[in-house]
């Protein structure tokens, strides 16, 4: 049974599992960013591989399909010299009726050191961390509509590189907040790191109940919401949202909430444009903005590797030292 104790930290207060941004201290998030910075620096100097996790086995457990998140976790593991096994469970064990716990037990029996988990249900990574053997670290690579903490940290990394600091920053997150685990993690990270204001801009159908309680101000109008904004984060719009009567059409969505050159002008001149990908050109963002000078979308992808290396190495080290 779960207790109130923070499942993510070991007895020394170090990161053992990385499940959510919520509940972590500013100092820990800064440590992740600083560690990632050192990996990124070294990678840029053509030193791409480090022996930190030699002999460790990491399993990518993807209960939901993913291309870039899985690929960047794999690359991060390889660059840390770990052995990595990627399992696409969406098409294997659980479809044969095996329970989540049985899948975990079987993999544990193969003597692995870390699970990187993506699952369609909120709380899945939490559940696995709660039930995995104590020497195993769990990294949440996205659980349902809850959190996607490494994505948020690579976004924070990208923002810090572009803007140097968080204090005074006004950030707008635009789009499907309701279903977005990325948005929840970003909101927590920005608030913990001390951003001036976090706004969410979306129609009411794509906002969760009492979203203000997460520490955001709400806008239903993109032009009004982008005023004085330094960072714009566009979220991907899933096509199936039209079928569940959340939106009438892609074109109407673009008219109201799509980021075009005109709308972009409403924000501060030096505003950066971000997107966790994959992007739907012409649905939430126009090609000219996505490929334009203010876009840092591809830098986000690059930064994803360094941030994931940081999180994996920190969690594995706490694990060895922890109880």
């Amino acid at each position, binding site marked *: 049974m779960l207790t109130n104790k923070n499942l993510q930290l070991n007895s020394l207060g170090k990161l053992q599992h990385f499940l959510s941004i919520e509940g972590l201290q500013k100092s820990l998030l800064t440590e992740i960013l600083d560690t990632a910075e050192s990996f990124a620096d070294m990678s840029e100097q053509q030193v791409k591989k480090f022996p930190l996790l030699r002999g460790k086995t990491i399993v990518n457990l993807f209960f939901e399909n993913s291309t870039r998140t899985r690929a960047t976790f794999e690359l991060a593991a390889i660059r840390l010299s770990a052995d990595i096994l990627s399992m696409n469970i969406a098409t294997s064990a659980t479809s044969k009726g095996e329970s989540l716990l049985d899948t975990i037990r079987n993999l544990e029996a193969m003597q692995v050191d870390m699970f990187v988990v993506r699952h369609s249900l909120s709380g899945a990574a939490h*559940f696995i961390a709660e039930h995995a053997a104590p020497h195993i670290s769990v990294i949440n690579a996205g659980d349902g509509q809850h959190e996607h903490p490494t994505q948020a940290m690579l976004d924070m990394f990208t923002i810090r590189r572009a803007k140097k600091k968080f204090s005074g920053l006004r950030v707008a997150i635009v789009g499907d907040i309701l279903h977005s685990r990325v948005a929840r993690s970003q909101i927590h990270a920005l608030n913990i790191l001390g951003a001036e204001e976090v706004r969410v801009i979306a129609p009411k159908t794509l906002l969760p109940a009492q979203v203000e309680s997460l520490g955001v101000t709400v806008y239903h109008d993109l032009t009004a919401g982008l005023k004085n904004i330094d960072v714009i984060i566009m979220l991907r719009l899933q096509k199936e949202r039209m079928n569940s009567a959340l939106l009438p059409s892609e074109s109407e969505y673009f008219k109201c909430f799509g980021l075009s050159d005109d709308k972009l002008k409403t924000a501060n001149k030096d505003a950066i444009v971000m997107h966790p990908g994959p992007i739907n050109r012409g649905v939430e963002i126009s090609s000219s903005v996505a490929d334009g000078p203010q876009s840092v979308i591809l830098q986000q992808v690059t930064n994803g590797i360094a941030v994931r290396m940081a999180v994996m190495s920190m969690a594995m080290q706490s694990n060895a030292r922890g109880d």
Partner: protein
Amino acid sequence: MRIEIINGRIIDPSNGVNEQAGLYIEDGKVVAVGNAPEGFVAQTRIDAQGQIVCPGFIDLSARLREPGQIHKASIHSETHAAASAGFTSLCIPPDTKPVIDTPAVIELIKDKAEQCAYAHIYPVAALTQKLAGKELSCMYALKQAGCIAVGHAQAPIQDLLILRRAMEYAATHDLLLMYCPQEQSLSYQGCAHEGAMASRYGLPGIPVAAETIALMQCIELIEHTGCRVHFRGLSSARSVIIVGKAKQLGLPVSADVAMHHLHLTDADMLPYNSHYHVSPPLRSQQDKEALLNGVQNGTIDAICSDHQPHDIDAKLGAFPETEPGMATLETVLPLMLRLVEQGILDLSQGIASLSASPAKILAINAGHLTIGSIADICVFNVNTDWQINGETWQSQGQNTPFWQKNMRGKVTTTIQAGKIIYSQ
């Protein structure tokens, strides 16, 4: 069998009794309250010094999981747990496997319960065949076989036309409908109260409107059909207002609330702890307070256990995929006593909400200690401290958020129809 219970404080809300007195039982009936009848020689004497003697508790909804899910619990295990918690009668919802939609299933359950000889069972029959929400069940035959009411558990009813016809037909046979208000199209895939906590944890929400819309639709159909309806398990402040208005209109309605909704809110949920996964969901502090008010002022007639024992696997998984429900029979009395301690209810009201009131809703001659009535009796000690653990817990389902928590108040003796079915 002649039993005397002496030195206890008798609380019998229906008869306005609240005094230190003896209670005398013969041939399964209460024969005297106060002094022993002349020539009465007890075969069993229970000294209830410092304890409360009251009518046995009657529960409006307890799942025993039999037939069909004996890996979760059985009639034997749960009627025994009920007896140990002071319950002498239990209504069981129709969603057994097979569904209670034929006289044969009713007979099977009654036979089994009689063999076990703990708490008495009142089956609630399915409103529609197989609980599929499409065709009416054979309500006349089910009533003949002994169902206490008809209901639909939490299964959806296809549309309002079916509900209307079912209510008309139930009214034809003067059957009570036990209705769990939840509009499926609004609660679909939800697993937590739609509010700040669900938003934080990314859990699909069940809005209050899912309950209130179903309530209002049903109330309009009560006006139309005259069917007697008991609303099971209110969870929101708005629902209390709506039921209050229906009562003001003089409609034949009653309502209950599950005991855990009077103690827990969504803010109490530990992160992804599936023991807090219940349906209807735990709602806000404001909802909890309105429900408590509703119990205080009588808008909510009774308190129910809504007992739902589960096997371990049912609660092992990511929160949304776990099965809803708590095992609750054994926490009802200590949680009722907490309400008394908090000054929300007096002890007599608390006892009535678990005995006289449910009896009135079910229109059964029980829940009181009138001379000549069936001797269904609970004796408990308000000051006994105990911990919920594997030693003390009787239900086969250990799915309670109160596991290893300390409780105050424990049943010492339960008597059903003059027979001691539990003695500590």
